């Protein structure tokens, strides 16, 4: 019941955000906002695996790009509406996440992290060599100008991303408060003890990997329509990997609020820095913030806020 209320609140906030953005009569808001929303989905997805179970995924870019390339593939094969493509992208990335997890999660945690790093390189190699989806030259996706329901196409993409944000946040919160979430937390705290107590750790980890991968793929699926011209180096960009780690780490990894705060803060900061300084400098800022936060504030902004509130409550 509380989850249902949470869903309603999320939908209401999303509707308010959309109409507020529309009031500004500026398409740039939608372009910039889309990127921020996309990072909210990625950060939340990353956190379901990284924050809840403690397994680090460095291959967010790979899962994201898989969603994007699934779109390119089906766009060429037989054009379909984007919501269908989002589902397909989610299924493809989810399956890859499951396969990767099955091969590496039975071993020590570090192997999974390394394998995800390598996965990005290998998938990029495949895409570069696959002419059907454009190879190293990249692929053009011509997007329509208008959508019958929403109006300008960028607003339509924005609405879709908002919907994905709602789905991701609801997923994260439902998991957090469920038996599944407690299972994840036991893995994070002490996997050996959890195993000894009869927690089916491998199955839980596979659920987390699949779900997290699927959400990342869903975030990537509308991307070709947003960017218009998809290149392997832009889809597999390291900034997706680093941002989807940095945002939850800076926001706080233990609850769904952390990635949301981190993504909104860092995402908007980067949009501003890209316009005012340069895109290389803003990536440097993200990297430095990530290092600073993991050393100084291990529980992120949420942790800092809790620490300042707690003494007052006593």
């Amino acid at each position: 019941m509380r989850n249902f209320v949470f869903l309603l609140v999320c939908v209401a906030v999303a509707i308010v955000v959309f109409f507020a953005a529309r009031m500004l009569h500026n398409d740039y808001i939608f372009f910039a906002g889309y990127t921020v929303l996309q990072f909210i989905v990625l950060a939340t997805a990353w956190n379901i695996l990284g924050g809840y179970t403690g397994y680090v995924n460095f291959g967010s870019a790979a899962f994201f790009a898989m969603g994007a390339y699934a779109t390119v593939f089906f766009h060429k094969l037989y054009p379909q509406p984007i919501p269908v493509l989002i589902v397909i992208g989610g299924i493809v990335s989810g399956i890859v996440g499951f396969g990767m997890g099955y091969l590496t999660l039975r071993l020590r945690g570090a192997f999974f992290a390394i394998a995800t790093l390598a996965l990005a390189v290998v998938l990029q190699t495949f895409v570069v060599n696959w002419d059907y989806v454009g190879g190293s030259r990249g692929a053009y996706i011509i997007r329509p100008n208008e959508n019958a329901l929403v109006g300008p196409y960028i607003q339509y993409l924005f609405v879709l991303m908002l919907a994905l944000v709602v789905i991701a946040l609801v997923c994260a919160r439902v998991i957090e408060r469920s038996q599944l979430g407690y299972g994840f937390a036991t893995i994070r705290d002490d996997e050996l003890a959890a195993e000894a107590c009869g927690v089916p750790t491998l199955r839980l980890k596979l659920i987390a990997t699949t779900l997290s991968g699927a959400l990342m793929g869903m975030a990537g699926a509308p991307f070709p329509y947003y960017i218009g011209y998809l290149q392997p180096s832009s889809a597999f960009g390291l900034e997706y990997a680093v941002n989807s780690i940095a945002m939850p780490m800076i926001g706080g990894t233990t609850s769904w609020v952390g990635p949301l705060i981190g993504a909104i803060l860092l995402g908007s900061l980067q949009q501003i820095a890209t316009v005012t300084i340069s895109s290389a400098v803003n990536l440097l800022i993200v990297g430095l913030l990530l290092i600073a936060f993991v050393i100084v504030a291990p529980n992120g902004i949420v942790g800092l806020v809790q620490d300042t509130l707690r003494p007052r409550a006593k």
Partner: protein
Amino acid sequence: MLRKASSLGSAWGECVGLSFDLLINALIAGILLGGFYTAVTIGVSISFGILDIVNIAHPAFIILGSYIAYIININFGVDPIVISIVMLPAFYLLGAGIYQIYYEAFERRGQESLRGLSFFFGLLFVTEVTLILVFGVDYRYVEASYIGPSWRIGVMDFPLRMLVPCVAALALFVALQLFLSRTFIGRAISAVAQDQLALRLMAASPTRIKRIAFGISIATTAVAGALLIIIQPVEPSVGREYIGRVFAICVFGGLGSLPGTVIGAMLIGIVESFTATFYGPSWAPAVAFGVLLLTLAFRPAGLLGR
């Protein structure tokens, strides 16, 4: 011999002769490449294999080593390998410093898995972006007398550009192997992996030993970086290709075993070279990943693993 056979006029003979040359040269290229991969991986064998520190920023330090070799080589004309040997103490100190931060912030608090990994990922990223900001994304290269010429023995081709790094890398391996097996500190480093308490009872501080070992691991990147820029022109994001490769070699060879690392590096070098020759160079990066997944699925201990 095979060339003579083809003089009979058979196109098939010509074909075999050619592919025999191709085969033997692909094999040589693979072995030389594998030698170089030894230098790239040996530091990870120490940090990940022995100390259990997942330093995914290792390739970033290699690129840093490449750029230092590049700056000094272009300005003063010093040989890149000589530069790397001079730079060893500086890289050692860098490594020792990073370990100190890592220890204070993560290892002591027992948070190395999630936050420690993110820390190294951040280091990797910051190093790469800083190099891009300073040097741009142009490819840089060094000049040395052995870049260009090659020795020919029969149909076999030994480009010095590959042979010199291979020999230097094997020398590095021999030196490290002797250090680890013959000196007190070297043996203490091996002991850290097995039993830290016992080490403490022997009046050796595990933290100090690990700091030294991590310093050595980073010091090897100075050499690996110089060798890399001898072999190929370097730009800041080249390091990314090596992340999967070094860990694949390290796991494939067997964690913590330096001889295993050499064998693993050679085998992966050979397979990559054959892949590049017969399927095209753009497929080579996928080899290491395939090997990594197969190793993890079938023999997680690696070739010479404990």
